[in-house]
């Protein structure tokens, strides 16, 4: 079996399972599944930034928050009652603008300095943009906005399963677009910039343009995730978009492995289903960060390219499918 066939088969199997399994679950678990898919979209946004151009961001949830609050303010019950189909693109645009602005100081930074810059952006947004009392007309202040679920072809997506399927289709579309960029010119160019900036610019690449584009598109995808999160939960509270969420997201991306689309799906499941599993086992869900931290250390030692990426690679070897090019994936050491 050649790698392309194996990939198609596993993607197809994944889609069938992802559609069928939540169909058999209760509404509560369907809503968790929808949240997992939305986190997977956020992971895709980081995938693009870290996996392609090798830059790290600790403020993806800030971008998601921009998307969510735009949707909340424009289509919330206390807001303007606009359609989701107008407020969502505006939220994506607004998040993209945020990404563009953060991308400007990020142009000359990488690694630890970029991590600190983006962390500062996240903290600053928590304190001055999202906090009660500063931009209440945007965030809703003490009364969180309550946007309602969108309508698609006359069908109101209020059911948990229908909304899950809707979010899942959006995830698939975003994943497809990211995949196309990855195997096309964009992926090549951004990886070239990651490998050698001096060679990339000598080859005629405008580093400023490409790095800004990567930051902007990444933030736009995060904004899309935030817009979906707003209507999934039905209430936009600043606490859902704080810097701790961003850090958890970055940690999950690193554990799973940057640059692989499968790690987005598995990372999304991990964020929402492991705390649930802990609950079932009678363990306090506050142990989740401890588990994540332990995994992070284990992964850095045993699978620096990322757990999911390593799994894909090993599985490919085991099944004698021409191995994925492991060298495509940068190691964390290169990023931080």
């Amino acid at each position: 079996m050649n790698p392309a066939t194996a990939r198609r088969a596993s993607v197809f199997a994944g889609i069938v399972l992802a559609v069928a399994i939540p169909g058999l679950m209760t509404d509560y678990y369907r809503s968790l599944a929808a949240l997992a898919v939305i986190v997977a979209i956020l992971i895709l946004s980081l995938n693009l930034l870290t996996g392609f151009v090798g830059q790290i961001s600790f403020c993806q949830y800030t971008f998601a928050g921009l998307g969510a609050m735009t949707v909340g303010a424009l289509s919330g019950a206390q807001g303007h009652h606009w359609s989701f189909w107008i407020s969502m693109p505006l939220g994506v645009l607004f998040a993209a603008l945020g990404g563009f602005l953060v991308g400007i100081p990020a142009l000359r930074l990488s690694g630890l300095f970029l991590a600190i810059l983006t962390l500062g952006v996240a903290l600053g947004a928590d304190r001055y943009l999202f906090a009660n009392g500063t931009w209440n007309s945007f965030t809703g202040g003490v009364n969180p906005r309550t946007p309602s679920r969108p309508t698609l072809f006359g069908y109101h997506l209020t059911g948990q399963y229908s909304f899950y399927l809707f979010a899942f289709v959006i995830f698939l579309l975003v994943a497809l677009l990211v995949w196309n960029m990855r195997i096309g010119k964009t992926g090549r160019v951004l990886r070239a910039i990651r490998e050698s900036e001096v060679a990339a610019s000598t080859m005629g690449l405008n580093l400023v343009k490409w790095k800004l584009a990567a930051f902007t598109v990444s933030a736009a995808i995060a904004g899309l995730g935030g817009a979906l999160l707003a209507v999934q939960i039905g209430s936009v509270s600043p606490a859902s978009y704080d810097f701790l969420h961003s850090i958890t997201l970055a940690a999950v991306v690193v554990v799973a492995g940057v640059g692989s689309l499968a790690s987005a799906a598995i990372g999304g499941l991990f964020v929402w289903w492991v705390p649930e599993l802990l609950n079932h086992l009678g363990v306090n869900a506050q142990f989740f960060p401890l588990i994540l931290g332990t995994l992070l250390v284990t992964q850095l030692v045993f699978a620096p390219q990322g757990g999911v990426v390593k799994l894909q690679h090993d599985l490919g070897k085991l099944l004698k499918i021409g191995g994925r090019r492991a060298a495509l994936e940068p190691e964390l050491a290169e990023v931080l």
Partner: protein
Amino acid sequence: MAMLELKGISIRFGGVQALDDVTFSLKRGEILGLIGPNGAGKTTLFNCVSGVLKADTGTITYEEQDLKGLKTDARAHLGIARTFQNLQLFASMTVLENLMVPLDAFAARGMVGDAFRLPRARYEEKKAEEHARAILHFLGLTEHTETIAGSLSVGLQRRVELGRALCLRPKLLLLDEPAAGLDAVETAELAALLPEIRARFGITMLLVDHDMALVMKACDYIYVLDFGKLISEGPPARVSSDPQVVKAYLGEAEEVA
């Protein structure tokens, strides 16, 4: 008519005068050699032409255009390509991908066209791949097409860098020590390859190297640089017998012939 003209280029790093009032010109179709001992300022001069460094004083004119203020990527778009002394391949990418990057830089499509695989993106992608494969074939690298560039030997990596520069469709090619790390056979092959590249692609070349065998064989004209100053110039035969050059350069190293 000179293709590239340097006038009074000086650059200083702290206490070191890396280039001191260097003036020379390069004719279209020429393979010009620039030699000099270690630290003579050869790579610095390259960096000034390709835009990696800014000279303190002096002007660089390319095709009657002042290069002042133009960034590296803009100079590439004018047709100036270069290779690097310390290899700068995109090491974790395949050889083919390495060669496609400059073609990508000249292609019009952006992220949107790429993401949606618009017809133009697919067409450009196919054209770029064909072009890169043709260059790989010309350089005899076909069997390494899908190899990760960083895993190749130094000799092959230098050849890939040359191929990557050729994919930029340059008018002027700057070769920074292309023979460093090559054995005698590979160097001889390279010396034969450079005039072939000129004949085939019509590229003017500026070659910097220590390897006298290469420079003497491949170049039409040679400038000698020492401690940032030009100390001699002329056709290979004359330069190699210039007592000043022998003193500055040939005298200090036994293995150069």
